[in-house]
């Protein structure tokens, strides 16, 4: 089977962690199925990235490079991916589920007449057939699928596959000429300042702040300034990533809760389901729809005043029945 690993380079011209995992997923099929691997890369420069994975066993390296492919933009990226896929003539195309690749994957599949499945968490060979695993209904159920159609384009989620272990070297890249069709110009990236960053996908731990932080405390008063200080203190001390419940984010949007929270922090049924090794939930409450927010957290602990909280019971490894204000204050002190 011809398999195309299709990925963009990052700003430095190399392949990021998500791409290395996607290549690991593509290579992994070779254990059970004879595959012929082609690497397709696009970006401002691709040689360094190709050299980075020169020893991955690919029979061919294809590339689309140039200043017009430096930015993540639908028109240029889709044209590059389309050209690479057509040149490779692959039956299976594996892409990482980065924001850049996800923006174009489905559109490229439509151009190729390919079937598409996104955000796979598993990709294996069973009985000589490729079987993909993905989640449905916002991570509430998981399914295994097969497809007859070829080509089949898939994106694979981060944190689900072992990154490829490929020796670096010097790869011979066949560069394709592509004329992108687009009227879009990327004018900038708005990132939070390093000391104000609260979403860190690479962090070891996710701190989930629940609505309890914005509610009246034992003295009948809200302690929003104190809550902000404690949460930011724990983020600073641990360099963890911050997630939040929809209710707290909504309160914050109305100016009634924590000023640094946005909808980008929202986890759960209507938010994201980030992947981290550890998760600490604080002042969270709710049942299954909310709990999906930490579906992909391996080790989970919760601080909550309610011992029967559905967020924690049966979902967390440890539930501390305590006041999160007091506990987090002390934890920050210990971690300083």
């Amino acid at each position: 089977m011809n398999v195309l690993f299709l990925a963009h380079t990052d700003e430095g011209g190399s392949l990021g962690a998500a791409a290395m995992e996607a290549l690991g997923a593509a290579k992994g099929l070779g254990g059970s199925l004879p595959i012929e691997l082609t690497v397709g890369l696009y970006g401002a420069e691709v040689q360094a990235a190709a050299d980075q994975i020169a020893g991955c066993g690919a029979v061919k390296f294809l590339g689309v490079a140039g200043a017009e492919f430096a930015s993540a933009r639908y028109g240029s990226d889709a044209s590059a991916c389309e050209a690479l896929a057509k040149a490779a003539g692959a039956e299976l195309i594996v892409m990482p589920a980065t924001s850049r690749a996800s923006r174009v994957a489905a559109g490229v599949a439509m151009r190729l007449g390919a079937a598409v499945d996104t955000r796979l968490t598993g990709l294996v060979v069973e009985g000589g057939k490729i079987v993909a695993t993905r989640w449905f209904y916002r991570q509430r159920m998981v399914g295994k699928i097969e497809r007859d159609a070829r080509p089949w384009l898939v994106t694979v989620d981060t944190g689900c596959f072992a990154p490829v272990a490929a020796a670096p070297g010097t790869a011979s890249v066949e560069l394709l000429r592509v004329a992108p069709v687009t009227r879009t110009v990327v004018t900038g990236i708005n990132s939070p300042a390093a000391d104000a960053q609260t979403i860190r996908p690479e962090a070891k731990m996710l701190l989930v702040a629940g609505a309890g932080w914005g509610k009246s405390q034992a003295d009948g008063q809200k302690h929003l300034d104190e809550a902000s200080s404690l949460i930011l203190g724990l983020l600073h001390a641990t360099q963890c990533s911050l997630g939040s419940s929809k209710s707290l984010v909504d309160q914050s949007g109305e100016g009634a809760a924590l000023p640094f929270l946005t909808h980008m922090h929202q986890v759960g049924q209507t938010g994201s389901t980030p992947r981290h090794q550890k998760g600490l939930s604080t002042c969270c409450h709710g049942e299954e729809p909310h709990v999906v927010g930490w579906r992909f957290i391996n080790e989970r602990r919760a601080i909550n005043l309610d011992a029967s909280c559905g967020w924690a019971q049966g979902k967390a490894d440890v539930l501390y029945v305590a006041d999160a204000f007091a506990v987090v204050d002390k934890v920050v002190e210990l971690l300083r």
Partner: protein
Amino acid sequence: MKGLQIVVLGSIVPDPLQTLEPIVGPTGPALKNEMMLPAVLDPWAGHALFEAASLAKRVEGKVYLVALGPKAKLQQVMMSVAQKVPFEIVVLDGPASGFADAAETARALAGAVEKIPGLDKGKLLLFGGWQSASRGTGAVLSMVGELLGITDQFQGVDEINVAEDGSFTVLERIEGGSYQQSSCQGLPAALGWATGNLPEPPNNPQVGMANMRLIMPALQKAVPAPLKGEGLRYQGVEVPSQRRETRIVKNASVDEIAREIADWIRA
């Protein structure tokens, strides 16, 4: 730019508060008691619809909602959605299942968009959610865009500003809580919305009555859109059994708990 035509793709999903259980149906996996489950407009499609209405109000544009779903359920959901913002609806009567094929869904929707009377692609903004609470592929909008020949597409959008000449700027979510800012010279364009910046509009009975005058005939004229799912086979779908043995720590002092958590974080 005046006279924008904003087409929003969106359908219904089971109310997130419901318990969902997969079963094997005659055509593949389905949800247990799917037709009995209360439904809502998909949250991301909702954001797209409310942003579309807000933009249309500013530029004297028109909003169309193109929805593929069981029309009886769509009618129920529209009774409340119609009270939020003004729009016209185009209905395709078919499954809104999360197990349907995204490409097949896209082809049906693209066909419906093409048939909107007076559609001018030079004034077209195609809106939808960048995700959904059903299949969640983030693929349908992009494929519909391709089928309509739209090569300027954006995903994870939280903001758009349209200029008088039809050019616009857009903010897209990318990794790490950052935004990518882009400008585009003109329409058509496809935008997959994240949450946007607008709260859910309050119910307005007058808007609801005006909408329902168009929604009811549209539901009666719903075009059947059976999705066959050919070539797609499910080996199985299950709710993962992830019940953990939760150790409950009660009556411990704050110091003890904090020390245990700090040790765990450091480990």
